[in-house]
């Protein structure tokens, strides 16, 4: 009899191990080749270890062999959704190193392009976020509106995503004669479309159940992990480079840095929608007042930076994007380092998703708006 008792007690104490599951690198919700090593306890996520490097393209190393104007075209390929901001960061860094002042026209156009990219990026993020949570409709609605922005880019810059529109000292081309009209038409239309986004997804009960009070990130963690952009601002981390270190035409425009302290998935979602309204607001202030002037200053045929270290940061659609150039006075940089927002944001995922169900991991990852080439540059 006593034997039976023993057995019953020991089943009580059966120790369940955590098991490790690979999410990705071919998982649709990782939006690229990202591998997350997830330790699970049942369905509950215990720890997440991201493994990056599957599409590492060695851009930083390639930059050491090419000249500064050529570096810009590679930055298109890192965060392809904020190509304009990445381009601009390198261009600004070189301009600051050479102490070149660009004309106001360039600053205005750069800022408008930045904000258009931000809109396009957030539109894509919105539609993909819906798709990750099973709302396929949003995917088509978001892409529909993004198409207009890509048309604007294509007409003025010649390409839809890999725009390569900035050069050290100015822009590749002047804006197309249709540019202002097209942008205004788009804004007018998009202002009627953006409320549809709210009706389709923001209020949707299924969506709200998936994102409300899930994936909390505290302010301390956000700062400690360097989470920037709307993801950081959702935790109350005031980190908008456009406000704190204004560049281009940002000192001349009025806009608000959207902040919240709650730090859950829904807040990160809402801040991006609000940022879209702010972007529209910024473009409206600039589009009618683009000053006359040159679209580029004359630069030397071969651009050489003085010896030293130069850093420039800009606010890309995902957060703070930084370019750090070490120059030894030659026409190629000695070392280039890109501080990409996606990389820092990704590694805070563990803080947000630990303790939640594995299905929530997908939702939380969507709110980080990851672009894998930006992480694996």
């Amino acid at each position, binding site marked *: 009899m006593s034997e039976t008792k023993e057995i019953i007690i020991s089943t009580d104490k059966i120790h369940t191990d955590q098991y490790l599951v690979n999410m990705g690198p071919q998982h649709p919700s990782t939006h690229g080749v990202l591998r997350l090593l997830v330790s699970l306890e049942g369905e509950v996520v215990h720890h997440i270890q991201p493994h990056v490097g599957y599409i590492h393209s060695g851009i930083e190393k390639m930059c050491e062999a090419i000249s500064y104007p*050529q570096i810009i075209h*590679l930055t298109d390929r890192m965060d392809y959704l904020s190509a304009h901001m990445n381009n601009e960061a390198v261009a600004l860094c070189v301009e600051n190193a050479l102490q070149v002042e660009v004309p106001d026209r360039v600053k205005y156009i750069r800022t408008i392009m930045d904000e258009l990219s931000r809109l396009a990026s957030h539109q894509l993020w919105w539609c993909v976020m819906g798709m990750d949570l099973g709302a396929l409709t949003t995917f088509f609605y978001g892409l*529909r509106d993004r198409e207009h922005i890509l048309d604007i880019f*294509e*007409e003025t810059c*010649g390409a839809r995503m890999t725009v390569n529109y900035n050069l050290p000292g100015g822009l590749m081309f002047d804006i*197309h004669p249709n540019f202002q009209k097209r942008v205004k038409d788009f804004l007018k239309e998009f202002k009627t479309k953006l409320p549809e986004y709210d009706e389709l997804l923001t209020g*949707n009960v299924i969506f709200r159940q998936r994102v409300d009070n899930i994936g909390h990130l505290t302010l301390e963690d956000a700062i400690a992990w360097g989470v920037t952009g709307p993801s950081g601002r959702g935790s109350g981390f005031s980190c908008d480079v456009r406000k704190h270190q204004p560049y281009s035409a940002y000192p001349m425009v009025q806009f608000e840095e959207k902040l919240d302290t709650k730090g859950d998935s829904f807040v990160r979602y809402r801040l991006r929608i609000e940022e879209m309204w702010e972007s529209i607001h910024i473009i409206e202030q600039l589009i009618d007042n683009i000053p006359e002037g040159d679209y580029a200053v004359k630069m030397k045929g071969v651009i050489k930076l003085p010896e030293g270290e130069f850093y420039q940061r800009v606010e890309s659609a995902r957060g703070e994007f930084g370019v750090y150039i070490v120059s030894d006075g030659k026409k190629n940089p000695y070392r280039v380092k890109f501080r990409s927002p996606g990389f820092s944001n990704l590694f805070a995922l563990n803080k947000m998703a630990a303790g939640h169900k594995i299905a929530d991991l997908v939702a939380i990852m969507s709110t980080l708006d990851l672009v894998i080439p930006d992480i694996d540059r």
Partner: protein
Amino acid sequence: MNGLFEYIKTVFKGVGTLLTGMKITGSYFFRPWKHVTQQYPENRETLKMFDRFRGEVIMPHNENNEHLCTGCGICELNCPNGSIEIISMSVLTEDGKKKRAIDKHIYHLGMCTFCNLCVKACPTGAIIMGQEFEHAVWDRTKLTKVLNLPGSKIAQGVKE
């Protein structure tokens, strides 16, 4: 009792939010002319890309089979990935002087990133960006092109 009432209220509210979304999709369902999709490739004849669209690098020739390229090699220097190779030759001008001219302007379309730096750098405007975008071929050697046409020569009066 209150709990039950609250529960039913949430259910109705939830269904309401779903209906709001369906109102939008429904309204587009009945307004098909609001669609923006293009019927490619059916619309190939009428499809026109934007003037600045960067599809490939081309070298325009005039009716006498003349181009503007001097063979200076600046485009080759500006290309970030070696998509352009310039093979130049020297020719004798009428007054007996030696002059550089283009032999082959080799363009590797398969490597090109369409960055526009070569076009921007060319001092004579000999190369421009073409609007062709259907570049799929069965054999990748077809992606290596010689841009100056056979038998072509430089147009009169082009200064280096």
